């Protein structure tokens, strides 16, 4: 029922501007949830629409299951209605002139499923998304979250082999978004369908995805399980986009396997993880998440142990963000807890775990945002 999705060297160039998608390749195995994450305009929607068949790729190849559905070089372009996929749109796209049941039954009607069987399937899927009591309501009387559940039910009712979701939560308010986010993963996993999910929200991506692909300017930068994206970002952009907001400039003195020694401002030496291809002697930027800086650790023997001056603090109730001056630059560190431990002006011992300091070549484009 659920099928593998294969995207190879996909390119899409619109009549104007740079390519919207530039040589994107990835796979989603049957039953897997792959999330495409990236800032607005990076080509996520275009990728998804190419997979759906709503957009014609310029070149490349898309296959769902065993069937090649878009191969422009061979003139293959299977229309969306024959791809047996489901799609959930950012704007819900539920049909306002129909009731909930009519909306969800629609795909079965198009497939000429017998009435009794259709009724049973609709009831099942409405129960799955938690809308059983609303079946006979006109959709326009529902809230945004409920409409999105209708859209989900409508795209699941015919058991498609692939489910596509384009920022399905971005039009909802924050609280609802959290609820539906958890529900979404449960429902998708329950049906076992392969899913391609697009979002610009990293926290959504982490919760939902079996694997996350980070995109920028039409390129797929890295695709990996969430903990790898968070602990071994492939480049400065991925690190930055997923929340590593600190960047310390420095120079790589020596490389030692996966790690290396970086000289930062003030002549301090820092041990950091190195992605492949960063050569000794080159200028680097060390990226570091605020959560990974450990404060007040009395362990002078450990590597990357420094002293920092607290120059500012932002108290947020359950956590505090400290602004630190150290290593010839500025760092932001985050500590959980309702207690503010370090007053402004005091000195604090900090520990920067080497495997969580990532040194990227400074030649790379500056981090965005």
């Amino acid at each position, binding site marked *: 029922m659920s099928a593998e999705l294969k995207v190879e060297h996909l390119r899409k160039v619109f009549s104007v501007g740079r390519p919207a998608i530039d040589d994107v390749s990835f796979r989603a195995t049957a039953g897997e949830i792959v999330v495409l994450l990236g800032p607005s305009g990076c080509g996520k929607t275009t990728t998804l629409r190419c997979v759906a068949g*709503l957009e014609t790729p310029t070149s490349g190849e898309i296959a769902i299951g065993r069937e090649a559905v878009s191969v422009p070089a061979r003139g293959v372009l299977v229309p969306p209605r024959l791809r047996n996929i489901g*799609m959930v749109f950012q704007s819900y796209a539920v049909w306002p002139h129909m009731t909930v049941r009519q909306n969800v039954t629609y795909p079965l009607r198009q497939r000429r499923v017998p009435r009794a069987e259709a009724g049973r399937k609709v009831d099942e899927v409405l129960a799955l998304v938690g809308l059983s009591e609303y079946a006979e309501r006109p959709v326009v009387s529902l809230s945004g979250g409920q409409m999105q559940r209708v859209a989900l039910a*409508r795209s699941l009712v015919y058991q498609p082999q692939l489910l596509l979701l384009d920022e399905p939560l971005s039009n909802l308010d924050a609280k609802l978004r959290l609820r539906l986010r958890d529900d979404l993963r449960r429902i998708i996993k329950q049906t076992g369908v392969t899913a391609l999910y697009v979002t610009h929200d990293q926290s959504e991506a982490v919760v939902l995805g079996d694997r996350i692909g980070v995109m920028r300017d039409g390129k797929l930068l890295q695709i990996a399980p969430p903990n790898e994206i968070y602990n071994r970002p492939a480049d400065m952009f991925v690190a930055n986009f997923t929340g590593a907001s600190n960047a310390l400039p420095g120079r790589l003195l020596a490389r030692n396997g996966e790690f290396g020694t970086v000289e930062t401002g003030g002549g301090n030496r820092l041990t950091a993880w190195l992605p492949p291809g960063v050569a000794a002697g080159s200028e680097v930027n060390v990226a570091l998440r605020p959560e990974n800086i450990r404060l007040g650790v009395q362990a002078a023997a450990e590597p990357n142990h420094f002293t920092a001056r607290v120059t500012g603090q932002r108290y947020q109730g359950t956590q505090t963000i400290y602004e630190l001056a150290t290593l010839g630059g500025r760092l932001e560190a985050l500590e959980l807890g309702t207690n503010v431990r370090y007053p402004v002006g005091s000195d604090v011992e900090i520990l920067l775990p080497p495997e969580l300091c990532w040194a990227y070549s400074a030649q790379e484009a500056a981090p965005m945002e």
Partner: protein
Amino acid sequence: MAADSTALGADIEPLTGSYEASQRSARLRAAGRWLWSAGLLVILGFLVVYPVSMLLLGALTNTNPVVDGFATFNLSLENFVTVLANPNVHLALINSLIACGGGTALAVVIGLGFSWIVVRTNTPCKGFIAAVSLVPLFVPPLVAAVAWSILASPKSGLLNTLLAGLGIDWRFDVYSMPGMIVIFGVYYAPYVYMFTASALRNMDPALEEAAEISGATALSTLLTVTFPLIAPAIISGMLLSFIVMLGIYGIPAVLGTPGDIPVLTTYIFKLTAWSPPLYSTAAAVAVILMTVTGFLVWLQHRVVSARSYITVAGKAFRPAVMNLGRWRYFTLGLAIVYLVIVVVLPTLALIVAAFRKFLFIRTMASLFDARQYSLIHFERLFDNPLALRSIVNTIEVGLITAVIGGILSFAIGYTIHRTRLSGRKSIDVISTLPVAIPGLVIGVAYLWAWIGLPGGLYGTIWILALAFVARFMPDTIKALSTSLLQIHRELEEAAWICGTRMLGTIRMIVLPLARPGVIAAMTLLFVLAIRELGSSLFLYTSETMVMAVLLLDYYEGGNVGITAAFSLVQTILLGVLIGFAHVLSRGGTDTGVGKAG
């Protein structure tokens, strides 16, 4: 009234002076507000309620109480029943329904077609096509009809001469029901276009894509999703174009009269041209026309205000554009053909007829023979003192209408939308009433209301101007309301709180901000007044002759050359005005120009 005097402004009185003094000024201001509402209601009563009541009365008697005195006043349904049973009325009604029904059907095909081409296909030059789709709104219906009678009258039409020259036996006949239907459909398609194009533009393309993904074919998507979603827009446009066609006089007068196809409007006029004029019968038929129109307006209002599905405010969609391949040159071709039909051919026909000594064209060669052309028709046109007088009169009427109508509409629009004065609901209702009254019916009503009053309005320029003000009031108020609503309420309230009184606020804040809208509305009124024919027909005298009426006179007198020359004069005058209006309003009030047909 005085009890709720704090509703407006009383609380911003400076806290100086004694308690009594402030009490007194509050009472004075309450009285002022009451006078304002009452004043507007009196003006509306005079402009709208009185004439319409007289018309209704007229339909129920066979005397006019104002003319014949109340002694002979005899109220009965008899007159009305007689009219209802009259087979001539049936014929006119049926002809009206067929012509307008057919015209509407064609308008829907054309309007929907062009909105699809413009919004949903990759046809080249879409901006041009969008403009072309609206062009007929700027063509005066009377001029269009005259031009098409020159082109396609069965005996001497230029197109028929051409066909004969080519040895083709088939002939156009615009003096027929199908001819009228085609002209109606072609010139009123923009009403459907305006509604459906914006509905298509505002529809989230994901709604259709979701259907496609659900397994629906393109046709099935069209039938189950697209059409149901834009149905309110289609129906609105349909009803509106039907309403306008039903009330129009120029086209059926020019095209229907030679072929003896009476419709309601031409029949009403014929009744008053009888000797002696059958005014009460005309009033009764006018009431029938008004009732049908009123019902349709109500229906359209229902459709528009029923929950529109397509309301995602402030969201811009990128419409799904269909790649037509080579067919996109075909769709561009359709637009060009349309432009040729509505503008190019009629203009050429008018030019040829106006400058040619004799319209009879024996051969194609003679069409290009310079000796056949002269200014003789223009000379003869302006030899007639009536022509010049009609131009002066028309401009005078236009100016009076624009100024009075503009000011009154602003006062009413402001009162309705921006105050909480008591009586504003009634003001709103009465000022929208003329929407449901065709121009011709307003003419009959004004005639009926003022003809007998000695020393009164009848026979002056003013009765024309006042009738126009009443007739176009709903359009003007609507055009103004948009610009009034754009002024943020807070801006006004800030001024109030700063202690500026209401009138001061209007003068210092609202007027400057609304001025572009007011000027545009006045220009619009000027343009509408210049082309208005239906209501003028009953209200002019030889002293107050206006262009549209004289043009029809020339046409009916059979002098094609002078008619064409005069049409050109009117068209150029209008063109200059519309260009001026466009510059002033940057196209913001386009839609109003055609509303009054």
